[in-house]
């Protein structure tokens, strides 16, 4: 085998193929010149290796900013809107404002059972108001009928009296 030459670094750093490594070792055993070069190379490498790695003075931590772009929200908001629309179409929404209480219900309005509301004070009060209004309405209706009847009577009397009055004129 010839001198190591350009293969010296490959040999020192173990990058020669296995068969060439073995061949190089055999050569080094009998070539003082190559042996000296290898020893010098190894010595320099050892000197360099006395300088250990250092820890970085501070740690790098990545905190990627969360994007607040409108586009980021466009898809989820669009999907939510579509779902809401589908729900409203399939199940109509009922909104009621009763006695300072907002009630939102989806689907067909459920008619409360009479037993559920009959006993409430509010129901009783309203029912009383309705009965009073109904009584007033009945009274006014009767009054109106009397007035109409009286008017018809007056009109009839006028017709009966008018020929005699006209003949006298």
């Amino acid at each position: 085998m010839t001198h190591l030459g350009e293969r010296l670094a490959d040999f020192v750093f173990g990058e020669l193929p296995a068969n060439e490594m073995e061949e190089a070792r055999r050569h080094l055993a009998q070539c003082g010149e190559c042996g000296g070069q290898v020893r010098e190379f190894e010595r320099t490498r050892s000197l360099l290796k006395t300088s250990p790695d250092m820890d970085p003075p501070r740690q790098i931590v990545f905190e990627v900013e969360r994007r607040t772009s409108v586009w980021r929200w466009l898809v989820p908001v669009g999907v939510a809107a579509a779902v809401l629309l589908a729900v409203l179409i399939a199940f109509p929404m009922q909104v009621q404002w009763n006695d300072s209480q907002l009630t939102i219900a989806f689907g067909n309005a459920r008619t409360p059972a009479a037993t559920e509301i009959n006993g409430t004070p509010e129901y009783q009060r309203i029912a009383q108001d309705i009965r009073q209004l109904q009584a007033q309405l009945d009274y006014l209706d009767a009054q109106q009928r009397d007035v109409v009847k009286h008017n018809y009577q007056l009109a009839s009397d006028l017709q009966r009296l008018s020929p005699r009055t006209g003949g006298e004129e």
Partner: protein
Amino acid sequence: MKLGLRPIDDRRNVERVLKGDTEAFNLLVRQWEKPIYNFIFRLIGDREEAMDLCQESFMKAYRELPTLKDRDRFSSWLYRIAHNTCYSRLRKDIGKTFVELDPDTGSSRSSIENRLAVEKALQHLPEEQREAVVLKVFHELKFEEIAQIQGAPISTVKSRLYMGFEKLRSILG
């Protein structure tokens, strides 16, 4: 740290990052910040500057990660980014003079003195030689990987290493 020591982990973390998991990038940072920092420090010779360039390298890596074609070669790609970042910085420092070595280069130095002597000796090498020596000796990269990082033929990398060693031998004794 030797390149490709944990290529499977690197690949898995790279894929997680590409799917939007930022925390996985922090795992890559934890894995590689020390070797990359030391690589940059030995090229630049200034600790704070090396830290800034290290951070800059990782930021570039994060931004350019979608362009990484071979996900099994994340580490050599990262070294390449650090190389480019350092060389951009070094270009601005043309003409900068480094502190001369102490005349005492004997073998009875303490470990701290040794480290300082090596750091100073490295700064006396031309950039390409220094980088070839650092990547080969401290990071144990293969010549092929160094050639990729330096963008040079393997034969050129070896020449740089030989010339660098020759000069270091004369400085360190």
